[in-house]
């Protein structure tokens, strides 16, 4: 249970990290927070020839907010996001989801870019990125490109980076002031991976009907997925519990994870509909409260 031998380097600029990745390609792995890679090294599931530690690159540790985009550097720690009021105000769904990532000891080291790049279908940050149509910024030898989250996560622990590319930032659209959000996760124990989790952002019209809604799921497929059938059914619909519960049933169809050690496929389908229903109702309640506060002020 010790890491295999590797060559270690710790570039202090992004350019140097990119050059090293270009030089070593698939033989090199980036070490960010290490909360997924270190277990993989210890269990010898990964044995890179070269480990490129990016923790010393200050350019990756910035959070920048413009009018409509919150850009979080890949090296920003999850615990920093958890306590950052600016992040909570700009993208409330992050504030709801981040405390569910592992345990606090993991979040003290784990980074935003690391979790995105690791691309675990049960992880919270990839799910939020897909739900909010975030953009993943990657950089390689030939420059920078922006990849929509829906195209970034390609399969089980697989992302769209070329061998010479690394994730440098994630751009989240700033949430409209009146939008409500909800995040509901079911795990066996506190801090465990989600058996199923749902992230929802919803906006209501003047009549209190749902005018826009995004529903993302984690833990139910090889990648995070959108429950588009639920979104379509609820767009323009009344936000009452019966309508929401009926629409949430459609979430069962996106579950492709079969029976495994943690749950049967049937139970996961049941959980998917349950977390979607609860997260939609939470988002609607949040939106109603925001509209009231907004019109009162």
């Amino acid at each position, binding site marked *: 249970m010790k890491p295999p031998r*590797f060559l270690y380097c710790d570039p202090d600029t992004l350019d140097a990290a990119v050059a090293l990745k270009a030089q070593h390609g698939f033989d090199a792995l980036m070490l960010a927070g290490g909360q997924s890679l270190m277990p993989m090294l210890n269990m010898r599931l990964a044995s890179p020839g070269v480990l490129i530690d990016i923790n010393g690159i200050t350019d990756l540790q910035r959070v920048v907010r413009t009018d409509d985009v919150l850009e979080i550097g890949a090296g920003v720690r999850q615990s920093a996001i958890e306590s950052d009021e600016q992040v909570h105000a700009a993208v409330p769904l992050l504030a709801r989801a981040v405390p569910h990532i592992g345990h606090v000891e993991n979040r003290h080291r784990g980074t935003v870019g690391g979790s995105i790049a690791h691309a675990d279908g049960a992880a919270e940050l990839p799910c939020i990125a897909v739900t909010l149509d975030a953009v993943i910024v990657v950089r390689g030898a030939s420059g920078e490109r922006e990849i929509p989250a829906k195209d970034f996560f390609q399969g089980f622990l697989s992302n769209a980076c070329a061998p010479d590319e690394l994730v440098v930032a994630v751009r989240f659209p700033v949430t409209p002031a009146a939008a409500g959000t909800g995040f509901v996760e079911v795990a066996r124990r506190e801090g465990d991976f989600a058996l199923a989790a749902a992230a929802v952002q919803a906006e209501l019209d003047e009549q209190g009907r749902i005018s826009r809604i995004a529903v993302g799921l984690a833990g139910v497929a090889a990648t995070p997925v959108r429950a588009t059938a639920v979104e379509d059914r609820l767009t323009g619909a009344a936000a009452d519990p019966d309508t929401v519960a009926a629409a949430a049933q459609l979430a069962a169809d996106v579950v492709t994870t079969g029976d495994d050690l943690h749950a049967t496929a049937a139970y996961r389908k049941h959980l998917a509909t349950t977390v979607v229903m609860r997260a939609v109702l939470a988002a609607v309640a949040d939106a109603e409260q925001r509209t009231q506060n907004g019109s009162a002020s």
Partner: protein
Amino acid sequence: MTTTENPAATDTRTITLRVNGREITRTVSTRTTLADFLRDDLDLVSVHLGCEHGVCGCCTVLLDGQSVRSCLMLAVQARGHEVETVESLSADQTNLHPIQEAFAEEHALQCGFCTPAMVLRCKEIIADGRTRTDEEVRREISGILCRCTGYQNIVNAVQNASRRCASTGQEA
């Protein structure tokens, strides 16, 4: 930061860090985890290895005051940082730190394997001086598994330590 020449990729590295208040310089193999470095090179055997893959939390140490799993860090990554293990809390067994007294008083350990981690996490939790419900304490210590499952007394010990440190004004 000025751009410096990046050091070449190597399998050993000389590092300097502070451990329990002392500055330490050592040459380490880059594949050595922080946990193994603390145990094997510095004899700080309070750092317990239960799983070596981030599940049990028994290897928890404080890195710049924050709890981290030392089996999920390389020793080389701790260079320039401050590491604290439970050995720093008291110089001898007759003069325990209030947190250690609280753990003893509440019988918060059976085999003791999770205890160093729990004590350090307790130190971090109560540092803000805030009063917590038992439920909150449970959530705060959920990253560390006690195989003896004596959680109730550990929760009691955290509450006890929190009261002691608040009333004596002693910094946790």
